[in-house]
């Protein structure tokens, strides 16, 4: 049963998830202007909360992590109808390297600053995190879902949630922290150069 979240809410969720799907959907630009290119990404973080190597940052330029623990299904550049996923990332918890303590899931708008875009302008944009029953399940059961345009406005990059180890189990926090300055800001916050 999906929890429709508001910014700032923290939820502890089902920790029996072995396989999770991060789904991102949005509508093509309903106003005049350049299409919105939203990008889902994930960071594999160590105990210090930082990304230990470039390959642990999964995004349109690096689609799968070591061991295929986290796999991005490909970049969508314009959006669709806002009712179904335009980008997806699959996380297999059984394959996450032991030194990874946390996975941060993020969404950003590509080239937002040049295009004068922000999340407040994107129609029907959502991100969901679903529990998958197995590798052939492409829909999953929603655990959390955010309506991005209503919960964020002038931001251009968001850390949506962090999935982290605690006492041998995976737990879930809906962080919902927005940043201006695009994906680069988040990349630097996690200790990588860009």
């Amino acid at each position, binding site marked *: 049963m999906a929890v429709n979240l508001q910014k700032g809410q923290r939820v502890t969720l089902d920790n029996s998830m072995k396989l999770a799907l991060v789904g991102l959907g949005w509508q093509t630009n*309903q*106003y*005049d*202007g350049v299409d919105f290119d939203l990008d889902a990404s994930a960071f594999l973080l160590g105990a210090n909360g930082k990304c230990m190597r470039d390959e642990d940052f999964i995004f349109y330029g690096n689609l799968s992590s070591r061991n295929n623990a986290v796999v991005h299904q490909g970049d969508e550049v314009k959006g669709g109808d806002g009712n179904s996923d335009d980008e997806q990332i699959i996380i297999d918890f059984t394959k996450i390297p032991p030194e990874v303590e946390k996975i941060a899931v993020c969404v950003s708008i590509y080239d937002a600053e040049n295009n*004068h*875009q*922000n*999340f*407040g*302008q994107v129609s029907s944009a959502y991100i969901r995190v679903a529990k998958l029953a197995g590798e052939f399940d492409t829909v999953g059961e929603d655990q959390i879902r955010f309506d991005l*345009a*209503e919960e964020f*406005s*002038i931001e251009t990059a968001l850390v949506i949630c962090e999935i982290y180890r605690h006492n041998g189990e995976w737990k879930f926090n809906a962080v919902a922290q927005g940043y201006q300055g695009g994906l680069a800001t988040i990349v630097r916050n996690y200790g990588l150069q860009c």
Partner: protein
Amino acid sequence: MAINLQKGQRVSLDDSLQMALVGLGWDVNQFETGGSYDLDASAFMLGANDKLIVDSDFVFYNNLSARNGAVVHKGDNLTGEGEGDDEVIIINFNKIPDEIQKIAICVTIHDPTNRLTFGQVSNAFVRVAKVSSEFDLVGEDQLRFDLGEEFSIETALLVCEIYRYNGAWKFSAVGAGYSGGLQALVDKYQ
């Protein structure tokens, strides 16, 4: 104590707001060859599919009041003279039909010779003020959105949207320009 919004920003309206004055203003750059310019405010009451349900929900200089008086246009200012608001639209939240999900507020250039565009219009703004009656033309400012200088050949602007979300009214500072004037917006919403 009004808040100033930037493009893309969305805010909740005060839930005690029963009647709002939407004031629109602009300046036409004085480099033009004299004469005055006619810019027109309009409002579209839209259903869940972002379209007009009945034609009379399109409020503009030739249809000054929507059904039930939910949205009332205070009249066409033909020259843009004067400080402050150039045109005013009053929204009566209690009278908005339940099927209406959004009110789109627009400004368009009425120029049969196609000389003027929003590239030549500056200081365009919209303000939303709380008023207690339709005779209060000042009200208590809640928010303001200054549209800035980013337009060039556009002749129609979707300034803002006032819409329902989770049972409350919100304001979205849109500021999107279109070419094709008022007709482009009518086509979008019909």
